[in-house]
Structure formats: C-alpha cells, structure tokens
C-alpha cells in the first residue's frame, strides 16, 4: 500500500488532481449546493442534467480535446502550436459552409466534419513541415497561422457570421434526445478512449517521448523524428477540427473572430498544469485533460462568485501562477528539504503532497 502511494505521489498526476481537489473543497465550503445536479426538461422536451458540474464538464470539452493534440506536439517538438484556436475557426467555417450548401442530414454532417478535418490536417501538416523539416521553432512557425487563420476563416465565410440551425446540430452541441448527458462530454470521452487505445496498441506514445527527449538517439534507433512530429501535428489537426465543430454546434453560428478566442493559451496552460514539461519529453494525456477541467472549474467558480468576467483572466492567472510554481522543481526540492529537516526520521510517502 505504501509503495502504491509512493508511486502515485511521484506521478505527474499529483499536482493536477490536488489542484482539482482544492477547487472542489473550496467550492463546497463556499456553497454546498455548488455541485448539485438536477434534472430539468429542456425546450426540446428532453429530460437533461443541469448544474455547475455539468457546465464544467461540458464547457471544458473543446479545450480538453485540443489539449490532447497539444500534448503530443509539446512532447515531440519541444514547443507549442499557438495556431490551434485560429485553425479551429477555419474548421468551423468549413463545417458551416458545407452544411449551408446542402440540406442538413446525418451523412452531410459527417461529410462536413470529415471535410473540415481534412482542411485542418492540411493546415496542421503545413505547421508540422515548418517545425519538423525546416526546424523552425514551433511557436514561430505556428505564429503564421495564428495571425492568418482567422482571416482565412473570414474568406471562407465571405465576411458574415453565417448561422446553421437543425435539430441534428443541436444534438451534437447540446443533447441527444433521450440521453441526459451533454453530447460534447460524450464526444470528449470517446475521443480520449480512442487516442488512449491508439497510444496503447502502437508505439506512438513511446516514440513521441523518445523524439522529445533526445532526437539524435531516436534517429539512431531507427525512429524517424520528422515522421513522428508530423503525426503529432496531424492528430492535433483532427482534435482541432473536432473542437471547432462542437463549438459551432453549440450556438449554431460561426463567428470567425471570436470562436475559441484565446483558447490556445488555455490549452497550453492545460498541458503545463497536466504535468507535461513544456520543453518536451515525457507527457501525460490524462493530466492535460484534467488540466482543462481545472481551468473550466476555475472559470465557472469565478462566474458563480460574480467576479467581473473582464477580471476573470487576472484571477485565473493568479491561481495558475500558484499551480505552476508548486510544480516547479525548485519549489519541490525546497519543500522536500524542508520536510526532511522537520521530520528527519520518517522521510517518505507523502512528501510531494506536503510540497503542494
């Protein structure tokens, strides 16, 4: 048992889980009712779950999905893709323009989604080529689409904010009749399972980390770093398209200027909170996903506390500084030393917990 605990405290998941726990406890003290979930009948006549907990899980889905791709890119390329939100705007625009030129049926929605995936994978591969082959720093390489992405989305939309409405789309962005859980949550879970299976039954996860830790060694061992990096970007492209399409379905409208605005920063934070080093190497997918829920929980908490939303970012920044500081190696080491000095005899199990 002690060994299991030791193993757990050493894992990358400690900090994100502990932060999440802290948020939950804080909210329970503030308002016991905060996490209460109730069943209501929505305007489509479905009985659905409602409450802050659902808002958190639902609201975080887009960022959580993108963070999966970002984690792979971070791990293999030692840098981040800052164009994800802008490319999501492109994905959404492509999705809407395909839907608008056809009658909206299930096959058309699937076609529109596949088409937007294709477009985002192309854009992501472009980023990937700049990073992997031309060895441009990821942040600089993706800066191109970061600034141009929303203009490209504008061209696709022809300037307006086109709307699409269909009960089918609201089942993707809202609730499927008969299922009380919001569809974005279901999509997110399915997506995570799919990626986990891919990582479990292929060597992709291992190769990605090896490329991130030491490219030269990877190369000498017969792993093609360029290919691994490109694959990371391609997977990220699919993640981004999924997130973009979900966001469009939520409101039934594409606004290329505001769709997932500033989400790239949230996603990068998510990865950082999740315990993946932003300098590449070892990654933790589940940590990133939990990170997304932490950020969303924080936002919902602040809204519930009626903090002006203009100030929400500042409060978020403070909390994030604390989380990132706690997980910094310098602080960890300091805490461990302090702990050793205080309790010289029983050095062991719950050190990092105390460090937090």
């Amino acid at each position, binding site marked *: 048992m002690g060994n299991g605990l030791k193993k757990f405290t050493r894992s990358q998941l400690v900090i994100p889980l502990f932060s999440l726990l802290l948020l939950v406890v804080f909210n329970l003290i503030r308002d016991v009712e905060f996490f209460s979930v109730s069943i*209501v009948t*929505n305007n489509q006549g479905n009985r*659905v779950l409602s409450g802050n907990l659902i808002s958190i899980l639902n609201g975080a889905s887009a960022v959580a999905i993108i963070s999966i791709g970002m984690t792979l890119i971070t791990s293999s390329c030692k840098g981040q893709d800052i164009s994800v939100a802008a490319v999501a705007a492109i994905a959404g625009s492509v999705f809407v323009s395909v839907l608008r030129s056809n009658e909206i049926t299930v096959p058309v929605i699937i076609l529109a989604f596949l088409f937007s995936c294709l477009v985002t994978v192309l854009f992501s591969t472009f980023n990937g080529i700049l990073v992997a082959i031309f060895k441009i720093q990821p942040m600089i390489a993706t800066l191109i689409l970061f600034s141009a992405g929303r*203009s490209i989305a*504008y*061209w696709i939309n022809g300037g307006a904010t086109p709307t699409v409405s269909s009960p089918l789309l609201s089942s993707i962005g809202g*609730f499927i009749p008969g299922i009380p859980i919001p569809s974005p949550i279901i999509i997110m879970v399915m997506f995570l399972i799919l990626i986990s299976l891919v990582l479990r039954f292929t060597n992709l996860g291992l190769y990605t980390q090896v490329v991130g830790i030491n490219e030269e060694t990877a190369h000498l061992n017969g792993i093609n770093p360029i290919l691994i990096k490109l694959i990371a970007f391609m997977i990220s492209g699919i993640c981004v398209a999924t997130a973009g399409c979900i966001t469009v379905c939520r*409101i039934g409208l594409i*606004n290329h200027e505001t769709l997932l605005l500033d989400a790239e920063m949230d996603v990068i934070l998510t990865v950082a909170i999740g315990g993946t080093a932003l300098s590449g190497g070892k990654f933790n997918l589940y940590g990133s996903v939990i990170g997304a829920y932490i950020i969303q929980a924080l936002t919902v908490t602040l809204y*519930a506390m009626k903090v002006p939303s203009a100030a929400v970012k500042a409060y978020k920044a403070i909390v994030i500084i604390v989380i990132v500081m706690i997980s910094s190696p310098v602080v960890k080491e300091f805490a461990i030393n302090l702990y050793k000095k205080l309790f010289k005899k029983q050095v062991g199990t719950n050190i990092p917990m105390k460090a937090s």
Partner: protein
Amino acid sequence: MKKILALIMIAVLTLGLAACVATPPASGQTTGTSSGVIKIGIVNNPPSESGYRAANVADFERVFNEANGYKASTFYSLKNDEQLNAAQQFITDGVDYLLISAAATDGWTNVLENAKNAGIKVFLFDRMMNVDESLFEAAVVSDMAAQGRMAVQWLKEQELPEYNVVHIQGAMGSDAQIGRTTPLDDEFAKGTMNCVIQQTATWDEATAKQIVESVINSGEKFNVVYAENDGMAKGAVAALDEAGITHGVDKEVIIIGFDCNKWALRELLAGNWNLDVQCSPFQADKIDEMIKDLEAGKTLPEKIVINDETYFDARTITQEDIDKYGLGD
C-alpha cells in the same frame, strides 16, 4: 559584412513595404472634372472586420459607382498610419471628395488641413475623429447611446411587474459597449430595474452562454436578457434552451439583441426573441445626397448627422423589414 548585408536587406524590405502601402490609391488618375464625373476617394476599414463592415462596404459600392456619376477609388486598412498615407495620396491625386472612416480618432488634423488647402471636401462616416469641425463638411455617424436608450425605453414600455436583468456586455471600452451599457446602468442606479448580473462576454457567443449558464445554476430568477449584440443574445438563448427556460413573445424571459443581422431578425419573426435594435451601416445614400447638394451650390445644414436608426419588435416585424434592414444573409 553580414551585418551590412542584413542592413541593406532591411532597407530594401522597408522600401518595398512602403511602396505597397502607397500604391493602391494611385489609380483614378486625371480624367478631367469637366466631364461631370465626380472623383471621390474612400478610406475605410476592410470588409473582413465584421459583418457590419461588409454591409457598409457593399453599401458604398452600390452608391458610388460610375452608373451614378462617380469615379471612386477605395483604400481599406485597419491601421491608422496606412489610412493616413492613403488619404494623402488621394489628395495628391486630386480627388473632389474624400470619404473617411478612420481606424483611430487621432492624428488626422494635418491630412485634413492639406485636403482643405487643396480644395477637397471631406466627409466622415461611421466613426468620428478628433479634429476641428471646420476641417470636414459633415460626419454621418451612429449614436450608440441612442441605441441603448431605445432598447431601455422599449423595455420600460413593457411595464413588467419587475425587471430582473441579465446584462451581457460587449468588449469593454468599445464605443458600442459604452453606448449600449450607459442607459441600462442609469436604470439600475435609479432602482427601476434590478441587475441580476452584469458581465462582459467580449462579443463572444460561447462566453455569453457560459455566463447565462452560471446564472441559471445559481438559481437566481431573471426575466430579461439584454445582450449588446446578436451573437451574444444567441449564446444566451442556447443556455436558456438547455435549461428549459422559455423565451420570446409572452414567454418567461425577454430577449434583446443589437445589430439587426438577418438571422436575428428571423428569430424575432418566429417570436423567439423580443427586440433587436439597429446599428445602421448604411451611410452612403445620405452622403450621396449631401454631395449632390454641395454640387448644386447649397450649404449643408448640420455638421453631425446621426444615422436614422430604428428597432424591431417581434410583435410588429415583417419579412419586408428583414429583407430591407437585415445584415448578412
């Protein structure tokens, strides 16, 4: 050696960029004013800025073309310095009229003085700038505060037993946000209306939805959603729909939006929303009229012309209104 080469490269690039900026307005050369064609230079923001701007640009293209006796050259930029350069170039080209929607309010005095000395008449549209009134003939602008007052006035006329308002603001500090917030703030201050929550969603639909969700989750009751543009109203409505709260004509919650997009007006027609206040991008006809007056030797009665703007009530809106006043498609 490398450094010198780099310096030369930079110099060449800068020159190249400068040339790019300067060239676009250089069209529209001398065709002779005696032919009756009026030469105008239009400095505007690019249509990609927003749906509002796209409609604005289309409106100017519709009015100022050769069929209507104009030879128009247009320059688009979001950057004030590029706009200034373009305006100066139009002056050098010798246009008769200069029509400007400035990216920023400051820095225009010099250029407008040059225009005045060259005998070029200047109109401002959509946006005011910080210059002496003698430097332009007239400005056709929107009065954002009037839009806010219209909405609040309409709301008061509904004579609800109580007003519990969810107020979703645009990007803080923007003209539209300040204009549309102030009249409602006055009511909150007077106590005639109760502010359930006042939050900015920075024009983002998804953020608006989250804000309304958090209000619903908190269990507080409200009967009005006042969103400062159509998109945020749509986001708010999505949250209401999920929570099973009815909205629209004679329903639990009144929905108010701004801008009059076509899709938003259709929501009104369907009775899902209650009110949409217009922010008119159509200034070209008014300016055309004033140019004709000046050409006929008349003087203009006023310097600041406020756009005729209106609002649409779900109970009275017609399909014709949507076709005529709606933005986008």
